[in-house]
């Protein structure tokens, strides 16, 4: 039984250029994600990845369609859903003048829980920064800290929105290790990314989104077999980047 079950999700916005017209940022997406899976959503900028995540997380209204997380209807019980999920957002800014330990205590309190902030910081390798301010952290440390914040409620499902964007290779790899560790402990992880290598290494299944729709969904291996150009596939050198370009084209997005 799927832990996340979404069918025909739609999110409609006003067209920023012509306010009388509307467009579907998310256009009838259906997902079925299994417990313990790392599921990746790939797509160019503006494909609707973040909007899809935010609808599942109860942060944005679902205009039509349904979503269930652990059999809880997101539309009807967003607060119940929020109790069992952890979310790392693209923007990770926090209140000024608070230490990491204080911020973790705050986030725990918002779930009416109490945690040892040091334990959480150890998990993400930031124990020595317990008394630092969030704005003193490097990019990689910030991302790891925002995952620590997402873990305060020991969530069943962890949502990560472009967790490694802007990180150097070392920071990126240390974050991948963290994600794999969390997954080994049984956490279901849903992540969005632009990074093909990341999708290939981390994800058991991948959905490729473009213009608000899922245009392909399978294991990385099957996607490569199916979509990578013949020549590449034959020499068995194909990777997810070949699949991505083959499906979404070469044109630049914003």
């Amino acid at each position, binding site marked *: 039984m799927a832990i996340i079950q979404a069918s025909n999700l739609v999110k409609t916005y006003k067209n920023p250029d012509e306010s009388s017209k509307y467009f579907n940022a998310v256009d009838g997406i259906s997902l079925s994600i299994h417990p313990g899976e790392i599921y990746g959503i790939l797509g160019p900028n503006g494909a609707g990845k973040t909007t899809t995540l935010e609808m599942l997380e109860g942060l944005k209204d679902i205009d039509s369609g349904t979503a269930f997380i652990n059999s809880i209807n997101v539309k009807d019980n967003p607060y119940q859903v929020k109790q069992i999920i952890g979310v790392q957002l693209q*923007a990770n*800014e926090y209140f*000024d*003048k*608070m230490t990491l330990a204080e911020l973790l205590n705050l986030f725990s309190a918002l779930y009416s829980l109490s945690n040892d902030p040091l334990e959480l910081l150890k998990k993400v390798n930031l124990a020595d920064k317990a008394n630092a301010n969030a704005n003193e952290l490097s990019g990689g440390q910030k991302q790891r800290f925002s995952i620590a914040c997402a873990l305060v409620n020991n969530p069943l499902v962890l949502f990560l929105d472009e967790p490694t964007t802007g990180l150097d290779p070392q920071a990126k790899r240390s974050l991948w290790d963290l994600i794999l560790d969390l997954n080994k402990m049984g956490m279901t992880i849903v992540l969005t990314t632009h990074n093909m290598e990341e999708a290939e290494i981390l994800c058991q299944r991948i959905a490729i989104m473009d213009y608000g729709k899922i245009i392909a969904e399978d294991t990385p291996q099957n996607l490569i077999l199916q979509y990578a150009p013949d020549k590449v596939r034959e020499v068995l050198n194909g990777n997810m980047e070949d699949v991505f370009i083959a499906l979404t084209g070469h044109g630049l997005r914003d």
Partner: protein
Amino acid sequence: MFNSPQKYLTKVFIQIFLRNKQYIIFSLILPIVILSIVGLSNGETDPIDIGLVNNSESNLSSQFIDQLTAGNLFNVIRGDEDSLRGDLINGDIMIVLIIPEEMSDQIQTTNITLLVDKSQIQFLQTIEPILSQSFLSIEREITGNDPMFNLVIEDVKSRTQSYIDFLLPGIMAFMLMNLSIAGSGFNVVEFRRRGILKRLFVTPIKPIDFVIAIVIARMVIVLGQLSIIFGFALFVLEANIIGSIFDLYICIIFGVLMFLTLGFSLGSLAKTQESVGVLATLFIYPQLILSGVFFPLETLPEFIQPFAQLLPLSLLADAMRSIASDGLNLIEVYMNFIGIGVWILIGTLISTKLFVWKEVAG
């Protein structure tokens, strides 16, 4: 009602504020400086610098000059017309009086020329009656006529009230408005812009939890700040409070609520930090002039007065002044409380209608 996430968030908001030492100091400096200036000068006006050119050698003119110098209303600077004209243009003196050569002891009308700078028109309206009055009394003294009327001014309130006593409730109301608006409108827009609100709403807290926490935290902070100002005025400047201090604090609590909800409305209307700044300026400055904080409402043009009385700051400042200076109690200012209640309602409606909590990322 007050659950543990709310309590924790309230504590955090207060904690963040207390760590911002620079803001605390700056928010207290201005009101303390204004009160100190007023309190230490005790509301007395400085003598007005006027220039005097005497072209006459008659007794009458020297008598006239003696009279003019005798009072403490004017500081008379004598000189020739050209140099005083220069002083007038430079703004060093307000007016120049020129006594003509033909001023003599005979009873006849003497034209005394008054050189003025028209840009000081406001000031002129004040000084003209004073001058005419001075001329009249000088004339009477010289001609030996007894005045037919003498105006005796009696204060029916019959208590010692200085300008600071008039100013204190108004300044407190004004400061309360600034602090509350800054603490709600600006905070919300800033938290939204930086994605902090969104991060909070990833957790199971509800918008109402956030609002309750920020309102209570701001209430505690503003009450603390006002108490410091109030204590300074009472104990250092020895201001008088006639009414009940408890009643005054009830006014303050409702005032903070009113401006916090109105601040949330401004924060909901504005999408960016820049536009909330402009909106707050549009909200604050007209009220500074129109609400009778520094000048009585009666000095405003008549057609504005009925509207001015309904402004949030007018309602609050008037209620606070009625209690602090006139010794009224809460029941006697119930009309103000009705007005404040209506503003709280308007603020709550606008902010809940316009603030799209689901789209907190903007």
